[in-house]
Structures are given as structure tokens and as C-alpha cells.
């Protein structure tokens, strides 16, 4: 086995410009061997452009891309040992499923019968053996998706690129495919680079996530890092639901920052580099980190009243009005209703959180 720290893809100062428009502004990142790596961001953030640069469909305006130490940015797509699962699958409509999966093997020089034999094994892996003689149009979306996966994996690429492959599937199928993809990645040991705009999908599947916006890398880290310790406002807002509050920092002492929320409300957070006394910054608190009580609890407490309760299946979302201050969204899991209280609208109560639940954000 190769060492865990081997780098599969190394993007060094890559820039992509279309005429005057800069799609990608100087990105550097390293994707480790055997990693499930996700490029996450809203549409137009440059994530697909970066993926296509790795695949070889877009040239690199500046910078370099290395694949296991070999510089590849000037090679045509057919000379790069990476394969792509396309968003629309791009299965060859005039070929059978088996011939689709065998295509890459044949182009790599395998004999027809050998290519077909291996393709048959791949179809077995994705449980589509009985469809091998059909044409792509005779398969459902989910089945086509699995064929696209089998086709891309058949030539045993060093890195598999997946361009929003689940976006055309319905919710249930998407959830099932997320797990299947994750398992497939573990079984094959191939490095996966997955592009998506769906933050939940990214959190579920990835070993590490690169959050991108407007052609720039915003944050790179494990799902828990990104969710619990967002670096900036974009990441906090884009990943999950959060209370984003504008605050002014009144005082910093012993690594703690006292923040003023308006209306006389104050909160203590951990100090963050780059935020000084007097600065106006944003603060993020996840709704599930808040709980309500009728007397102030240990930690940080703020007095308020309940505006509205919204039932959303697994959770109850409560909108809390802080007198003269901002509104808070509090989420209580239904399974937690024994321990945590839900108040009727209009009731005065306290919103509480542990110290450290509120995070100051740079910019």
C-alpha cells in the first residue's frame, strides 16, 4: 500500500481566464492518495472549471497540475490516467451498455474479448449485468448513472473525477447513491474528486472538502472542520443553517472576545486572529447548538421571547426575538424533547449556548 500522505493531484497556482473574465484566481491545493475529495460551491464558483482542467478539457492559463508527481497540464485528455463521470453521463447512445463500459479498455489497447470480459466484471460490480446488451436509452436515470460510473472505473484510472453526477437523480436515489459511491471509493482505493453544489452531499461523503466561491478557495478541511469552524462568512453561510449576527467587539481578554449584539445583549466568544477591539464583524451560531430554558443556564444566556415554532419533521425550529436585539433561530431535535423545552409563542425565556458555540468570522 502506498503511504497515506502521497499526493494524488497537486494543483499549483492554477489560474483560468476566459478573455477578460477570470474563472479561477490562483488556486493551490493538494489532494491525497485514496481520498474522497469534494469541490463544493455555488454555480459559477469555478469548481467544474477546476475539475475540467484536471481532466484536460480546459487549458490552464497559468500554473501547473501534477498527478502523482508528473506534470500533466499540457497533456491531452486521452494521455491522462484520469477518468470522468459526466453530469449528463454522456453514455454513447449508439453502443450497448457492455460496449460503453469496454470502450476505455479497448482504446487503451486491450483486445475486444478481454475488454468485454473486464467490462462484464465492472457491470457486475454495479449490479447491471442483466442490462449489458441494452442501449443507454432503455435504462433509468439511476441505472445510467451506474453505467457511467462503471465505464469510468473500468480502465482503472489513478483518479476518478465526478462532475455533479447525482444532480439529476431524485432525493431517495441520490441518498442511496451517495453511500454506494462512498463504498465504491473505499473498495477500489481510487482517489475520487467530486464536484457538487449540495453541501449536505459534500458533508456526507467527503474525507475533505474544498469550499469555493467566485473562483477562490474559501476553506479546505474535513467536513467537521468546515461545519464547526468556518473561516469566513461565506463558508458559515453556505454550509448548513446558521445564525449570522453583526456584532461589535467590545473587549478582548484572556483569549475571549466580548461581543455586543445590540440592545444591550452581550456574548463571549473565543478570540480569533485578525479581529481586534472595536471591529465590527460577524458571528455564527448553529441553531442546533442553542437551547431554551426559563432561567439562565450555565454558559452564555440571552433573554428573549418566542415568536414562532415551526415543525419540520425531525426538528422543531423556534424563532426567538431578543428585545431590541437580533432574532435567533433555535433548532430542537424531536428526539430531544424530553430534555429540552419548547415554549409557546409569546413566552419569555432564555436562549443558552456553551461557551465557544458562537464563532467570530473574519470579514
Amino acid at each position, binding site marked *: 500500500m502506498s503511504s497515506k500522505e502521497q499526493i494524488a493531484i497537486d494543483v499549483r497556482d492554477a489560474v483560468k481566464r476566459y478573455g477578460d473574465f477570470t474563472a479561477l484566481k490562483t488556486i493551490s491545493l493538494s489532494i491525497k492518495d485514496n481520498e474522497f475529495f469534494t469541490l463544493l460551491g455555488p454555480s459559477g464558483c469555478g469548481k467544474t472549471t477546476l475539475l475540467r482542467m484536471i*481532466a*484536460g*478539457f480546459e487549458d490552464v492559463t497559468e500554473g501547473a497540475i501534477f498527478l502523482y508527481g508528473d506534470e500533466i497540464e499540457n497533456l*491531452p*485528455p*486521452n494521455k491522462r490516467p*484520469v*477518468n*470522468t463521470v*459526466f453530469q*449528463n453521463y*454522456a*453514455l*454513447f*447512445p*449508439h453502443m450497448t451498455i457492455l460496449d460503453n463500459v469496454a*470502450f*476505455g479498455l479497448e*482504446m*487503451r489497447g486491450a483486445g475486444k474479448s478481454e475488454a468485454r470480459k473486464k467490462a462484464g466484471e465492472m457491470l457486475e460490480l454495479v449490479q447491471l449485468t442483466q442490462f449489458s446488451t441494452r442501449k443507454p*436509452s432503455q435504462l433509468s436515470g439511476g441505472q445510467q448513472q451506474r453505467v457511467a460510473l462503471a*465505464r*469510468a472505473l473500468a*480502465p482503472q484510472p489513478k483518479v476518478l473525477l465526478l462532475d455533479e453526477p447525482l444532480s439529476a437523480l431524485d432525493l431517495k436515489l441520490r441518498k442511496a447513491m451517495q453511500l454506494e459511491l462512498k463504498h465504491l471509493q473505499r473498495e477500489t482505493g481510487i482517489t475520487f474528486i467530486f464536484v457538487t453544489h449540495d453541501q449536505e452531499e459534500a458533508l456526507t461523503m467527503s474525507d475533505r472538502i474544498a469550499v469555493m466561491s467566485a473562483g477562490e478557495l474559501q476553506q479546505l478541511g474535513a467536513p467537521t472542520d468546515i461545519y464547526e469552524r468556518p473561516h469566513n462568512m461565506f463558508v458559515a453561510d453556505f454550509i448548513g443553517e446558521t445564525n449570522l449576527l453583526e456584532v461589535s467587539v467590545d473587549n478582548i481578554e484572556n483569549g475571549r472576545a466580548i461581543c455586543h449584539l445590540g440592545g444591550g445583549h452581550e456574548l463571549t466568544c473565543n478570540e480569533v486572529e485578525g479581529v481586534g477591539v472595536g471591529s465590527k464583524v460577524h458571528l455564527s451560531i448553529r441553531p442546533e447548538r442553542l437551547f431554551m430554558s426559563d432561567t439562565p443556564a450555565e454558559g452564555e444566556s440571552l433573554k428573549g421571547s418566542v415568536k414562532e415554532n415551526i415543525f419540520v419533521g425531525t426538528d422543531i425550529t423556534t424563532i426567538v426575538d431578543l428585545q431590541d436585539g437580533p432574532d435567533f433561530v433555535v433548532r430542537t431535535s424531536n428526539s430531544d424533547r424530553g430534555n429540552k423545552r419548547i415554549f409557546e409563542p409569546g413566552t419569555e425565556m432564555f436562549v443558552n449556548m456553551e461557551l465557544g458555540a458562537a464563532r467570530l468570522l473574519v470579514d
Partner: protein
Amino acid sequence: MATAKSAKFDIKSYTGFKAITMLCLFVLYAPLVVVTIYSFNSSVSLTNWEGVSFRWYVDVFTGPESGKFKAAALNSLIIAISAATMATAIATLAATGMVRGGKFKLRAVSFGLISLPLMVPEIVTAVATLIFFNAISFERGIMTILLAHTAFCIPFAYLPISARMQGIEDSYEQAAMDLYANKRQAFTKILMPLMMPGIISGFILAFIVSLDDFIITNFVKGAGVETLPTAIFGSVKQGIKPNIMAISTMLLGVSILMVTISYFVSKADNTK
């Protein structure tokens, strides 16, 4: 309710819809029907019906003019097949360049240049082609007809081919290249088969256009070289005989056959 409401705007409910439709169909097809029926007339007369017979069909193949018609039909067939083949090959390359060439300067101009011959009056093309051949002292004969036909068939072949190609997403070729196919393999193994219905339609259209062309052919053909349309015209000048109607009906049959093939080929959409 919904059907009653939409029926109000149904064009079929307009006053005179049926009458106008029938009139149009009559004007379009009555002459063809008459020619077809009278081609089976046993009479020497063009208009007096005397009974069903195949004598004029037999006359086409064995009568006094049969040698002339056979030679002309053979010329027409050779020219139509060769011209359509060359025009289709050129049009396929042109469509590949236009549709897959990305954005390039003069793209709109290029498209205009390819399709303009469709709009130019044929007599102008005919005169221009004749002057061109004279200017380069190219001896008139079957070669001049073939070259002229190839040239004016290109836009006819181009249109269905490029329309087809525009409907093929470039992700198929990208997928092929991603799966280690080089450019040539991506073209021959993926793009060509997907384009085939358009290529066949283009070929058939070019074939028919070449087969029945008269004006340009008449200008550029050499002395003694005849195609079927010019031979028919020459024969008609000496008076219309029923054998002309038999030839016309056979030509009509070939056209219908070709159009039918083209229809079924384009229906067999292999991208779906």
C-alpha cells in the same frame, strides 16, 4: 371543458379550412396524378383514354428513343451518385468545422457563404459556372457537369448534416477522449455514427437535387452529353409523346423512394 375551450382555437374549426386545404392539395398533386395515370394509357394520344397498358413503359426501354434515354439515365445516375458523395463528404467536413470549430472570426460569414447558393437564382449560377469553365478552358463534358453538381449540392447536403450535428452534445467526444480515444478515434467511433442519419439525409437530398437538375446541366454539358432531364427536354421539343409520361412517373417513383428512405433514417434517432 378544457377540450371544448381549446377546440375554439383549433385551426380545423376555421371557416373554409377544409376547402382551402383540399384546393392546395389539388393544385399540388393533380398534375402528378394525371401524368401518372396517363402514363398507363394505351393510346398514342396524350389526352384520350383508351385503356390500361404498359406499352409506353416498354417503349421507354425498347422504343426508338430507348438508346438515348438509357445513356442519359446512366449519365444522370453516375453524376448524381458521384456528385452527392463528394458534396456530402465536403459538407460533413464543413459542418464539423462550423459546429465543432468553437467560436472563430467570420463564422457568420462562413455560414452565409455555404448557404448562399441556395438563394442565388439558378440561372445566375449556371451562367457563372459556364463562364468559369470557359475562362479556364475546361472542355465541357460529363466532368464539367459533375463538378458543377458537386458544387451546388454542397449546401443541400450541409443543412441536414449541420442540423444533426448541432443536436449532438460535445460531451460525447469529450467522454471518448477521456476514455483514451485520440481525436481520430473520437471522430470515427463516436461522432460519425451519431451523425450518420444526418449524413444519409444530406446525401439523399443532394442525390435528388443533382438527379433532376436541368438549368445548370444544360449550360455546362458538352455537346452530345445528356442527362435524363436534358434528354427529356430535347425529346419534348419535338412534341410530347406518352413515353415522356412513363419516364416522368419512374423518376417520381425514384424520388418518392428516396424521400421515404430519408424519412425513416431520420426517424431512427440513435441519440435517444
